[in-house]
């Protein structure tokens, strides 16, 4: 395994982590949009508390991917930013609106109506961003992005406004929603609230399964090479089989109200699906021209980045572990009423 392969592996790991962590945050925003019924307020409250402490740290996986891409594979980054500039701009817009409206909603103290308005911006942008993230992944897989001398051969719209990227976009949204429902069902306090997200998880899981089949079918027309990768590489087969097994375990967990099992299995399922895509896409970063070898930074740069990654991981992994350990027992703290606002100021009351 060369240093460039290692770097590409780190990119894929970051993508998996981003899908499992930030993906679920986006999915939670989607459920915020879809919240309803007698427990609408409780649902929104749960969503806010679940993502409040962690969404920023989760978001950084994306930054890490971008940085690794432009440091390790500068040509790929250059082509991506030209050929898929439009979905990238839309992702960016979604990220801005999602992040800011979430903070504004949490910290807003004025009129209820304005706060609800920020909530709406938050949920709509949360739902929109995964769609375009998926379109981006679909766009680099279907062989439509060809950039020569800084000019996109297929323009700026026909690189991604195609059936396959759009199918991947919708699949990404449904997977994130499914993932998020499984997490929220596990984190909810009351049996009723758990039940709300159990139903949502089951529906989203089933929809995701159908969409995955549909996406695979669409690939027959426009992403043949990727489809070959998915259906002919033994490693991809293995990953897909495991993903299928995880899906069964997750849905069974939801069905039998074993929410901890559902949470872990759903995360494994989505992680394995992203990994299978990575294996099928290998060695391409952007089909049909850009591979990890022909777009890579020189070897010594890649090695230096690998070392930096290693050192970074030594600091990051324990830090992340601390973050999640501190908040895993979030259940008890949820007894403390209302938003992070009051929680952050807890000791003030003792003054």
């Amino acid at each position: 395994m060369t240093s460039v392969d290692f770097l590409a592996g780190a990119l894929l790991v970051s993508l998996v982590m981003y899908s499992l962590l930030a993906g679920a945050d986006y999915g939670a925003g989607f459920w915020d949009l879809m919240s309803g019924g007698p427990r609408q307020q409780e649902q929104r409250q749960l969503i806010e508390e679940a993502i409040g402490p962690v969404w920023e740290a989760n978001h950084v996986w994306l930054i890490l991917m971008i940085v690794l891409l432009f440091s390790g594979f500068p040509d790929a980054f250059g082509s991506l930013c030209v050929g898929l500039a439009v979905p990238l701009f839309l992702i960016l817009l979604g990220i801005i609106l999602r992040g800011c409206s979430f903070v504004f909603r949490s910290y807003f103290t004025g009129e209820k109506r304005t706060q609800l308005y920020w909530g709406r911006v938050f949920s709509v942008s949360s739902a929109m961003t995964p769609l375009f993230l998926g379109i981006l992944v679909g766009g680099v897989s279907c062989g439509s992005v060809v950039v020569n001398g800084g000019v996109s051969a297929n323009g700026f719209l026909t690189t991604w406004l195609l059936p396959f990227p759009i199918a991947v976009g919708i699949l990404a949204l449904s997977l994130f929603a499914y993932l998020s429902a499984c997490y929220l069902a596990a984190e909810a306090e009351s049996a009723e609230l758990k039940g709300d997200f159990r139903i949502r998880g089951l529906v989203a899981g089933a929809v995701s399964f159908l969409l995955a089949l549909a996406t695979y079918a669409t690939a027959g027309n426009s992403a043949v090479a990727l489809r070959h990768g998915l259906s002919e590489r033994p490693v991809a087969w293995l990953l897909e089989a495991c993903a299928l097994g995880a899906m069964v375990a997750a849905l069974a967990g939801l069905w039998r109200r074993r929410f901890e099992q559902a949470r872990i299995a759903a995360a494994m399922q989505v992680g394995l699906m992203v990994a299978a895509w990575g294996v099928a896409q290998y060695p391409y970063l952007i089909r049909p021209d850009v591979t990890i070898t022909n777009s890579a930074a020189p070897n010594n740069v890649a090695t230096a980045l690998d070392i930096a990654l290693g050192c970074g991981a030594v600091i990051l992994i324990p830090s992340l572990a601390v973050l999640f350990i501190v908040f895993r027992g979030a259940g008890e703290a949820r007894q403390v009423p209302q938003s992070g606002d009051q929680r952050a100021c807890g000791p003030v009351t003792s003054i």
Partner: protein
Amino acid sequence: MEETEVNNLLAARSQMGMSLAFHIIFAAIGVALPLMMVIAEGKWIVTRDDAYLLLAQRWAKGTTILAAVGAVSGTVLSFELGLLWPQFMRHAGAVIGMPFSLEGFAFFTEAIFLGIYLYGWNRIPSWFHFLSGVIVALSGLLSAMFVTFVNGWMNTPTGFVLVDGRFTDIRPFAAMLNPAGGPEAVHMILAAYTAAGFATAGIHGWLYLRRGRNRFDEVAIGIALAVGGTAVLFQSVSGDALARMVAATQPAKLASLEGQFTTEAGAPLRIGGLPYPKERVTKYALEIPHGLSLLAFHNEDAVVKGLDQVPESDWPNVRIVHLCFQTMVGCGSVLSLFALVALWLQRKKKFFSRPVIRLVVLVSPLGFIALEAGWMVTELGRQPWIIYHILRTRDAVTSLPHLSVTFTLMTAVYLTLGAITTWLLAKHVIASPETQFIEKEEMV
């Protein structure tokens, strides 16, 4: 170049400039506020004075809001690097990826420990809480340092051999530790402390004048001015180091800062003045003989290269660069003077009086004005190059059409963002504290 291309370049530069102008404010506060927050918490741990605890919590809220907004606007910038300047990233990505990657890790650490700090008041031991705050402050500082290293590289590119317009023999660490990087990073970090420190002191000063004498605002002003004042005094040393570095590596940039059109030995230092690029002269300046040679080379008769050494097509906008530089130095000088006076008054125990606090409020915006002006100096002073003497800005821009649309959209987004952030900070950070801290006494 065709007209549409010129317009596209202008739109791309405007969009990048606008994004950075906002980001630099969010980031500067995001770097400095955690430091002040940690100082306040440390003071509380030592003294158990609840005013400090309340202050730490208020500033922590400000840090959260700004870290979120800063994270978002930082993401915007990392996308825009590629979306607006794909040719720059294609060429330079491998060379300057290292500081960006390290910045990514620093930012990651910051986000993780900020989460722990904010939501952990009641869940973790107090020493660990304090330590988390220290890590937030430290990693914010490191983020700023790494990012400024990149800007340093654009000014003094090193760590590669250029063959037929391509970077070969790349040494990423040599590129990261370029000559401009260190001095620029120190200058930037001190600028962040100065700007945020004085601005915070100004806000609490204004509240102090409105609410009457109270401990809460007093300790806030104390910490904020200690941070801002110390930083601005070190800034003169850092500025001197930076100017000498620019003199040695980017003579044309120094010449535009100073409005120096002709090469001369024993060049004067100009205070104020307006450069006339067509007539190649700077008028109306107060000139201190030999001043520039002395400052830039520590030798009163040193030869200072003028703009006549480079073709006029390679000049930056001399007038704007000179004015920005004068603004920065002017604001910095006023703040330094104020810091010294404040220190003396503090010694005499005469600081907290109405006229002095009014003065605090009056000078409080100068830090941010200097920060923005200084950033304009380094960015506009480097033009027309995106990588100094290697790649021109116009050759790095994207082929994506209709950039004016994205520029308009992003400007609207940032203006909204700025307005709401200000409003939220006003509501949360500076809202009235518990009444017990306010003793409505007569002002001295």
